[in-house]
């Protein structure tokens, strides 16, 4: 499944990002083939969300190159990235509780017959699109606040693929999901993959679930990619070991420096 040059949707080279004195990303290299689903894993604070926010134009990198469909680009804003076909489902979903489902679906790309919103058209298209994607909702008129976590996530995903997203970034879509709701999201991703015209990066902590849908796994540690393998050549065990090994190493180091620290921090272990 390794990306051949022609079929490359996205390439990120030597990306670095600092916030004040803190280095969030040191040197990230990452490739995403067309139609590929890439799983991005790593411990909390490894810089996964920062990387996503750079690729979607929210943050600007301090160094490095971003190449989309073979062209190097400087992403100026979320809107700019979106115009290039990059769309994101954020961890916080970016849904507005006070607005209806269809207004959320069209947030910031509303259909307008100046000066008024074309509510009827948006409502109809939202309904159609959700039905096409197999997302079941009682009504697109409901305020989003009424919906369950899975339904909200599904709306956020459906919204992103609605307007021709070629590259979809999912930031922890499975966090805080029940088993059924998680399955709904994974099915959505599978459907998108089957259609084959969207490339996807998923951030997740549940390795079992992402191994089900991903073609390839990348591990982000201390601001750079330290592991890159096709799904078929790795396992939940290996991924868990990689992340845990890092933690153990850090802990051992700390214990050697201050033997009392481990006992104080984790009295039960």
């Amino acid at each position, binding site marked *: 499944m390794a990306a051949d040059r022609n079929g490359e949707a996205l390439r990120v080279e030597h990306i670095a990002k600092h916030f004040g004195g803190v280095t969030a990303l040191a040197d990230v290299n990452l490739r995403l083939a067309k139609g590929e689903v890439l799983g991005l894993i790593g411990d909390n604070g490894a810089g996964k969300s920062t990387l996503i926010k750079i690729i979607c134009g*929210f943050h600007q990198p301090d160094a490095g190159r971003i190449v989309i469909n073979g062209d190097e680009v400087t992403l100026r*804003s*979320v*809107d700019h990235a*979106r115009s290039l076909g990059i769309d*994101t489902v*954020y961890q*916080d*979903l*970016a*849904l*507005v*509780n*006070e*607005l209806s489902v269809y*207004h959320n679906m069209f*947030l*910031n790309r*509303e259909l*307008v017959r100046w*000066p*008024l*919103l074309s*509510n009827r058209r948006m409502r109809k298209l939202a309904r159609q699109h959700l039905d096409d994607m197999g997302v079941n909702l009682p009504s697109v008129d409901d*305020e989003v*606040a*009424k919906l369950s976590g899975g339904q909200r996530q599904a709306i956020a995903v459906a919204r992103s693929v609605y307007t021709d997203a070629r590259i979809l970034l999912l930031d922890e879509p499975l966090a805080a999901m029940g088993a059924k709701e998680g399955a709904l999201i994974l099915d959505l991703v599978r459907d998108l993959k089957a259609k084959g015209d969207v490339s996807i990066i998923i951030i997740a902590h549940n390795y079992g679930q992402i191994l089900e849908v991903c073609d390839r796994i990348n591990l982000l540690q201390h601001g750079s990619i330290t592991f890159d393998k096709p799904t078929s050549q790795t396992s939940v065990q290996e991924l868990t070991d990689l992340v845990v090994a890092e933690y153990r190493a850090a802990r051992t180091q700390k214990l050697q420096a201050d033997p009392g620290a481990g006992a104080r921090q984790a009295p039960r272990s």
Partner: protein
Amino acid sequence: MSDTIEVAERVEPAPAGRPSRGILRRVGEEFLRRREASVLVVAVALGVYFASASPAFLTQPNLVNISQATAPVAIIAAGLVLVLVSGEIDLSVAAVAALAPFNMHYLVDFYSVPVLPAILLALAVSAAIGFANGAITVYLKVPSFVTTLGTGYIVIGIVLTTSHAYPAPIPEGAEGISKWFGVWPWAHLTWAVLVTIVFHLLLTRTRWGLHTVATGGNLLGATEAGIRSGRIKIGNFMMLSVLGGLVGIMEAFRINTIDPNIGGGFELMFVAVSAAVIGGTALAGGSGTVVGAFLGALVLAELQNGFNLIGISANPYFLIQGAAILIAMIANVRLSRLRRAGRV
């Protein structure tokens, strides 16, 4: 939890019979779903009560009185609702109302600017103050409560310093225009209704309004969706300030003098906030209604006027206003919780 259950008992289980329900029932439900409904009921009930208590209440001069008391509050409240929905507040708007007619007066009488351009320039100055409010809040990250407390005092200071705290006469040559701005008895109400309709449509039917709700409801989410929330906030501050300036000029024409006391320092702003709250606008951002704020202004005007007519001293008026604010807010919070739970 316990209050949800209590309510659940009062609402009959109905979903199965939905299509067969009477049209009256459905109209009733649609009505209840609207946040403005309860305020409208209160406004009508107060009207009926005062009309029966005093024969003077429904006479034309008195209705003009009520409309003239409602209008300035309703106009300011319309703009204020948008600011509140976008998650901010503006304490300076009453001061801006005091400054605008003085600016008109200075321009006409000291710089020989014709009246209409002078009015437009005075409104432009109002807009600039609104811009300052927004920019300080958005870019310098000062909470708007503090920003506008500061600009409010500064503007009051400018009014008092430049006018030496003395009223000024309406500029000569303003007769033609004054008709539109408040000499004709129903001019105020006409402006108020127009402003309410325009701002209601702006909030509920345009991109601007949708982005205002998104900004106040989920600021981070709105920015992530690419909405320029800073611009939305600044724009709303500017529109409110222009409305404030308009109200100041209208009031000057109505009382036929340019008084530094127009707006009463911060008073008019507080009344407008009360009207917005009574009308069903939460100060938490993300939700609010312009029509409700108009009705809230009407309720307050009715109360004050009615108390006068039936000979109750004006003193307990504040007591009622305070209670109305609290009751409205508590009802609002509970209702929106019910709405979320899908019961109303």
